[in-house]
């Protein structure tokens, strides 16, 4: 084997090793814990194999945690609430992000780079700090309320913080770049001759958008939506800091089970179900992307 082959093999194997070590092994551990019972010990769960017991009884696994998830409304409500918030945040991001991406894609090259820079700029400040900043803006004694009070538009401060509104605002604000960037990438690749051609054949501007631009930007819509939906579904920081008591999302529940109740097996089961909810849309996306590349060839 010459040096090139060795190098090639190394390059191919490294990402797989990375995935194995930092994704597959932790996943296996969580999966294993989700089949255990909680105990007051360290670690706080029963082990899958107990070699101190008789050979027939050394293996112990239970589905109790999953049964409990089905039985207790709390989990169902959190999952549904998370799905709802993630879904509507994704829609809002799409509604806000599409025109932005479109405008950037059609801008002159100088402006385009400027706009892209502005889109990425917020990442230079810590995510946590930016969410805290929103608390300052939205609180009853915050910037917005003070402004509205001072110009006499309202008499009582509005409850903006700790509501679903603030959660949506936080998520849309934080994840908008993840929507705009893939949409921009798709829209910038579009041949604007196609728009001219449709207009030339008798389509008015809105029809051109519906018939040409929109269908051809579907790959960007899908990848942008997944990039927003997936992290939004498991989001913990934004609902924890900006959300009210009724904005209970699954990330918060997961956190509470782990650190509040120290029920690691139940928390693991919550995590596994969440993972399944994420894997399904990802597989749909993969399928779509494969079809897309097939078409291009």
């Amino acid at each position, binding site marked *: 084997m010459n040096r090139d082959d060795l190098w090639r093999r190394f390059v191919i194997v490294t990402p797989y090793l990375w995935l194995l070590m930092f994704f597959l092994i932790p996943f296996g551990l969580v999966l294993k814990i989700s089949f255990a019972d909680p105990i007051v010990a360290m670690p706080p769960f029963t082990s899958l194999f107990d070699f101190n017991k008789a050979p027939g009884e050394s293996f112990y696994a239970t589905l109790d945690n999953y049964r409990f998830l089905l039985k207790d409304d709390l989990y169902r409500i959190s999952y549904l609430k998370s799905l709802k918030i993630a879904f509507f945040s994704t829609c809002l991001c799409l509604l806000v992000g599409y025109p932005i991406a479109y405008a950037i894609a059609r801008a002159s090259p100088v402006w385009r780079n400027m706009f892209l820079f502005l889109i990425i700029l917020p990442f230079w400040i810590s995510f946590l700090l930016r969410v805290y900043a929103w608390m300052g803006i939205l609180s009853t004694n915050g910037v917005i309320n003070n402004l509205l009070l001072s110009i006499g538009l309202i008499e009582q401060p509005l409850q903006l913080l700790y509501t679903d509104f603030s959660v949506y605002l936080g998520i849309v604000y934080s994840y908008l770049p993840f929507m705009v960037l893939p949409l921009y990438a798709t829209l910038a690749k579009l041949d604007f001759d196609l728009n001219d*051609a449709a207009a030339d054949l008798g389509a008015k501007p809105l029809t051109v958008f519906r018939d*040409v631009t929109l269908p051809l930007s579907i790959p960007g819509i899908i990848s942008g939506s997944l990039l927003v939906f997936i992290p939004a579904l498991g989001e913990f920081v934004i609902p924890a800091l900006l959300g009210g008591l009724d904005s209970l999302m699954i990330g918060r529940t997961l956190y509470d089970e782990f650190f509040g109740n120290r029920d690691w097996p139940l928390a693991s089961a919550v995590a596994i179900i969440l993972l399944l909810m994420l894997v399904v849309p990802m597989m749909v996306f993969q399928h779509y992307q494969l079809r897309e590349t097939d078409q291009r060839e």
Partner: protein
Amino acid sequence: MTQVSPAQSAEKPAWLDPATKPFIRVEGVTKNFNGFTAVDNVDLEIYQGELFAILGGSGCGKTTLLRILAGFERPTSGRILIDGADMTAVPPYERPVNMMFQSYAVFPHMTVEKNVAYGLKKEGAPKAEIQTRVKEMLELVQLDGFAERKPHQLSGGQRQRVALARALVKRPKVLLLDEPLAALDKKLREHTQFELMNIQDQIGVTFIVVTHDQDEAMTLATRIAVMQAGRFIQCGTPKEIYEYPVNRYVADFFGTINLFEGTVSRVEGEGMEVECGAIDAMVKAKSFETIQPNTRLTIAVRPEKISITKEPPDHNDKSVLKGVVWDLGYHGNLSIYRVKTDSGVIVQVSAQNRIRSAERVLEWDDVVYLSWDVQSSVVLTE
């Protein structure tokens, strides 16, 4: 090759007949882009059934002019009239004009059939009519059997025909073609050239072709307008432009030409003698314009108009140069000679290989005489 516009009788082309009205009139059209003038006060009259070519190098404003005709750009000043109606402010989706784009702009997410049917659907044509017209059109461009294909399953030539069918199916009054053959390879280009001419002949639509390729313009067009820096510098039939270029730019742009600068030494009626210092010769020429002695001008001679012989020519009304064969190229149907004159200037000559022979008539370093007739000298004052 000259063609006669199909709408007209064979004797007289439309543009020479004062009784015919132009179908398209471009009146003083100017287009500025942030201080840059892309199209500069252009006037143009195109007649029904013509295959008109607008020819020029890149950045000469030809594509902008085409986009103004299609309605994608609004002229800064001037008017566009098609079939007597003012189109200057009419948006592209309401113009009786269709365009075939250089990139073809075939919709990648639609089948061939849907692409061709698109324009008719936007018109609101009844379904049955759409079906028959699309089918007819696909037959015309020889794409029947490809109706269900997606564009990525087609070759470049097929995609081009989809674009053509899609534009023609709307039965436009004018079809605009932006560099229609630029993306095709040489063989396919020649084939498509004649196909385009046939189709144009069959349906009689007025074609306006924009191109940078003078060969393409010459074979396709009934008339050519040569454009430079936003202006038309010459407009005429391919023959007129090739044989009677108005200035050095046009002469040089169309094919190869030998240019000799000189000073008029003697004028006699239409005839004159020009002393060309660089080639150290007296060149005989004719001009319809009156030219004063001592005028500085350029004599242009096409390579195929020059005869190359080993013996000095016996007619003394010819212009004669003496030189040695510096370079020769065999092209099958003709041979190209580059002859170095005694004064050191290279003159290009082409001669048909009329006799079948494996041996060369002329060899490197042979002493040769170049001669041409009076009427072959093109007098260029610009």
